[in-house]
Every structure is written in structure tokens, then in C-alpha cells.
């Protein structure tokens, strides 16, 4: 029972990170109908920048800010310089270009930082508090929850309460009509990429201290988990991405705890296959599917 409680909290904490990362994928999917396969590599790049800044200044938080800013800049660059020019007649083109970016980013990171795992310290203790003799949560887990919660809340407010959010949604759903109404659709697209990449960077910052360390391929498995989370949630739905992230996190935690940590990735793959074949629209696909 104690183990179950511990694993549940651990799973939710991991899940929160996957939720953030899945959210980043969903943001771009909604805006551009592209699954950004370079999301993981972009996030790793941001974490490397944070690593350098933290090493130079001794401040985790300066590094944290640097990572978010790097995310924004990378998002804008990737959209403006590359993705904007991709021929969208086949959905494969965007995928292949994103994979090319993965190679470039991982190669550049390897050249600058080498291919050894670099240790990254967490800003808070990762030792779990005990509640009634049961290890539950660490300070770091709390930090993760707060950070991801804040991002989800901020994005929700942005999209539902602000004119910019309305423009972004309209531009994604009906680009031509939006342009006729004076919305700069290209600008909204760039903004969407920037936001998504920043959220992805945040997820990278949160996940790397809990893994083996920093490496150009550090986010590969995380990407798969987040992609699965996004697919579980329906790829189109931000709420779905969050719920999907938590589901994947719990699954990973239970499988690691009760079976074997090395089996956990297989479990994610299995979940992905089951959802894709059983309910390709995601577990929460509603009748309010896209009409246009």
C-alpha cells in the first residue's frame, strides 16, 4: 500500500512533465497541423544553454530563464526559417524536415558539449517527505507541480480570455477567414511555435534532473512518452494532453515499481499502439470534432 502511494505520487510528478511536453506538441499541432518531432531536440538545446548559464553564474534560476528564452527564440527561428517553407501537400514533408532538425541540433550540441552525460542538479531536494511513515513527495515534485500548473493555467487564460488567444485559435481553425478579419495568421503561427517551444523547454528543465543527466539524446524517450500522452489526449486537445501526460506518468511509475524499470518504455509503446489502433481520436475524442 505504501509503495502504491509512493508510486502514485511519483507517477503524477513524472506525468506533470509529460503533460507539459505533450501540451507543447498539441500547441503546434493545433496551430500548424505538424507534429513537431524536433521538440525533444529543441528542449535539450534549451537545457544545455541553461547548463552553461548556471555554470557561469552559479544561479539555477538565471539558467532557468535562459532556457525559456532559448525556447522562445528557437521556436521563432524554426518556424520562420524552416517550417514556414515546408510544402504541406504531404504531411510527411513536415515530419522529415523536423527529423532533419533533430540531426542538426543533436550534432551541434555534441560538437559544443560532447557526448558524455553531464550531471544536472535539481534546484530543490529530491528526497521525499514522509507523511505518516509513507514517503510521498519531494520538494522537487512540488516544484514540478507548481511550474506545470502555472503553465497550464497561464495558457488556459491566454487562449480563453485574451484577444491574442482568440486570434490564435481563429487563425488555426480558419486561416483565410481570419485574414479577412485582419488577423495576421503568419504572426499567430510564429507565436504558437514560440510558446510551444518555451513550454517544451520548461518540460526539459524539469525532466533532465530526474534522469541520467544531460545528453544530446536525453529527450528521446521523453518525447515518445509525451507523444503518447498527446495521442492519448487526442492530439487536438490541451486538456487531453494534460490528462494523457498524467496517465503515461502513472503507467511508467507503476510498471517501473512493480515490474522492472527497463520494461517501462515497452509499456508506453504498448499504450501507444493500443490507443492508436483502438481509439485513434484519443480517449477523450468528443462529438465536437473538427467540422471545418
Amino acid at each position, binding site marked *: 500500500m505504501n509503495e502504491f502511494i509512493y508510486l502514485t505520487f511519483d507517477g503524477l510528478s513524472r506525468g506533470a512533465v509529460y503533460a507539459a511536453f505533450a501540451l507543447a506538441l498539441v500547441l503546434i499541432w493545433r496551430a500548424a497541423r505538424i507534429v513537431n518531432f524536433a521538440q525533444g531536440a529543441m528542449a535539450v538545446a534549451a537545457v544545455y544553454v541553461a547548463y552553461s548559464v548556471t555554470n557561469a553564474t552559479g544561479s539555477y534560476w538565471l539558467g532557468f530563464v535562459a532556457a525559456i528564452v532559448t525556447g522562445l527564440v528557437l521556436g521563432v527561428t524554426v518556424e520562420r526559417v524552416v517550417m514556414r517553407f515546408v510544402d504541406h501537400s504531404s504531411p510527411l514533408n513536415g515530419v522529415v524536415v523536423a*527529423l532533419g532538425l533533430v540531426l542538426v541540433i543533436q550534432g551541434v550540441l555534441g560538437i559544443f558539449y560532447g557526448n558524455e552525460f553531464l550531471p544536472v542538479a535539481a534546484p530543490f531536494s529530491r528526497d521525499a517527505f514522509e507523511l505518516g511513515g509513507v514517503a510521498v513527495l519531494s520538494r522537487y515534485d512540488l516544484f514540478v507541480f507548481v511550474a506545470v500548473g502555472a503553465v497550464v493555467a497561464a495558457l488556459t487564460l491566454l487562449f480563453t480570455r485574451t484577444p491574442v488567444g482568440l486570434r490564435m485559435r481563429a487563425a488555426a481553425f480558419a486561416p483565410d477567414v481570419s485574414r479577412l478579419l485582419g488577423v495576421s495568421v503568419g504572426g499567430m503561427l510564429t507565436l504558437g511555435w514560440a510558446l510551444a517551444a518555451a513550454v517544451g523547454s520548461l518540460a526539459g528543465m524539469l525532466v533532465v534532473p530526474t534522469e541520467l543527466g544531460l545528453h544530446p539524446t536525453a529527450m528521446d524517450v521523453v518525447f515518445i512518452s509525451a507523444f503518447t500522452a498527446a495521442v492519448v489526449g487526442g492530439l487536438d486537445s490541451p486538456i487531453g494532453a494534460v490528462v494523457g501526460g498524467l496517465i503515461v506518468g502513472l503507467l511508467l511509475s507503476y510498471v517501473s515499481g512493480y515490474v522492472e524499470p527497463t520494461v517501462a518504455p515497452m509499456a508506453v509503446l504498448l499504450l501507444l499502439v493500443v490507443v*492508436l*489502433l483502438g481509439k485513434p481520436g484519443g480517449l477523450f475524442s468528443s462529438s465536437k470534432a473538427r467540422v471545418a
Partner: protein
Amino acid sequence: MTDIKQKQKSGAPVPDLAAPVSARRRRIPAILVIVAGAALVLALTYMLPPFRNYQLATVGAYLCVTAGLTVLTGLNGQLSLGHGALMATGAYTLALAQNKWLNLPFSFLLAIVVTTAVGAVIGLAAARLRGPYLAGLTLAVAIVVPSVTSTFDETFNSDQGLSVVLDPPPGTIPMERWQAWLCWAGALVTVLALVLLVRGRFGRDMRAVRDDETAAKLAGINVARTQVLAFVVSAACAGLAGALFAFLAQSVSPGAFPLTLSLFLVMAIVIGGLGSLFGALWGALLLVILPTLSQSLAEEAGSHRLEGNLALVVFGVVLVVVMLAAPGGLASIRFTRLFRRNR
């Protein structure tokens, strides 16, 4: 309706193979090209120094998998990022079989059979998926499958991998020449089989499915079966390629089949020109030449960080540039005139 169809036809990147005249004109050369290729390789193996022979062998091994992928992606429209994992399957099967029975032909056969079976499983799932979903699933396969080696480490020996026991080459043939022969025998047989397959009904069905699934269905083509079959065929090719790599390196380990390998394969077929088997050859050549070049560049620069990583950057940049400049790949701009009929 006719309107839509016409638009699609004129917009399709690859011309229809239905033109019977050109197909017939090329039918005899298919074998001739293979025989000429075999003769060329044979001659090369006597002229090249051992290390170059080893590289030649590597090109042959790559050609097996790029040719299979070309058929899958270029002709059938399915993108697989998981063929690195399928190669790993073939490689590990060969290693295990060799170490147990030490019968090379049987080990190769087993490697192909096992990989084909695995490919059929993935293909069954893949046939129901499109675009980014399929890419994501196969990417997951590429990333997750190597972790199996740690789960069942008694069989696969984790990250260290396995060494492959081999009989010495027959007679006095040097090892590298023997390797080049075997790899190219595999590659040429693969290409010949694919050419025959692609020119037959199966090829027609695949192109029909790629161009317009609904129309293909209306024409009585079993879309799902065609797609599974395409996946299975390309998996068999990947299995052979993987087995050849195990045979070449005389060892297997998960590190030899990273995600980047799968991405390299995609790059090779895109740059080679989606859908052209000649493109698959260009792709296989690039896969050997580019890393070698960047390796020597890196050595000259004296930076060990450049090693390997420079190749990644070069591959990535080339891939992005080619995709932006010509989604049909380099072959679609430069080699189209010459080799289009081979598609």
C-alpha cells in the same frame, strides 16, 4: 470528380508507371543492370584495398535497407522511422543463430524470417495509421526496441552486446573481399526482387494506394493488404541488412542501432529521391561517404567532438535543404531525366 483526379495527377510528384512502352523497354535491362552491377562489384573487390572493400561491403548492406524503404515510403507513401530497430532484429537474430548453430546461410535465412515476422506485426498496426501517427509509432519502435536488450540481458547481454562467431572465408579469399561479395550478393538480389515486384501488379497497387486511397479502393485494390505487404517486404530487406551488418562488424550491440540510424535511413531515401531504386543506391553511397568525409575532416581538425557529430549536422542540413528545395529529393531535380523509368 474527373476534375479532381486530373488535378491530382498533374500534381503528383512521380509520374505514373502505367505507360506500357517505357516499362517494356526497360524490362530486359533490369537483369542486365544487375549483372553489370555484379561484374563491376567483382572487379572492384580485386582492385580496392581491404579497407575500401569493407566500405564497399557497407554500401551493399545499406543498399538492402534503403531499397526496401524506398519501396515503402516512395512507392507506398508510408514513412517508417523504425527500420533501424528492424535492422537490430535481423542483426541479433543472426548473432544468436550463428553462436548456436554456426551455419551462415541458415542464420541469414532465420534473420530474414524473424525480422519479416516482426515487420508483419508492426505493418499490421501501421496499415491503419497515417502521416504523423505512423511516424510517431515507428519512432517509438526505433527508440524503445533497443531497450529490450537490457530487459532480457541474459539473452542479449545488455549494452555490451554479443560477438558473432564466423567460419573463416572459403579458400584464400581475404575477409574484406568475402564480406563485399556477400553484402553485394544480398543487395543485388534484393534490388532485383524489388524491381520485379514493383513492376508487377503489386507495384501498381502500391502507387495507386499512395496517390489516392479512395480511388484505389474503388478500383478493387485491398488497401490494407497492400500496405501490410509493403511493410513486410521492406522489413525483410531491413532484416537482411541488419544481418549483413552483424556479419560485417562480427558483433552486435544496441549502440550500433541508435535512433540516428533510422533517421539516416530516411535521409538517404529522401536525398536519393523518394521512389527511385537508383536513388536508394545514391542514398546508400551517401551513408558511407558522408560519415567518412566528416570523419577525416574531424581528424584533420583534431577535434574528437567533431567525430560523428559533424556527420549528424551535415546529414541534417542536407536533409532540410533538400526537403525545402525539392520535396521529391535530389533525384527529382538532377537524375530525373536519366533514371525516371526505373521508378
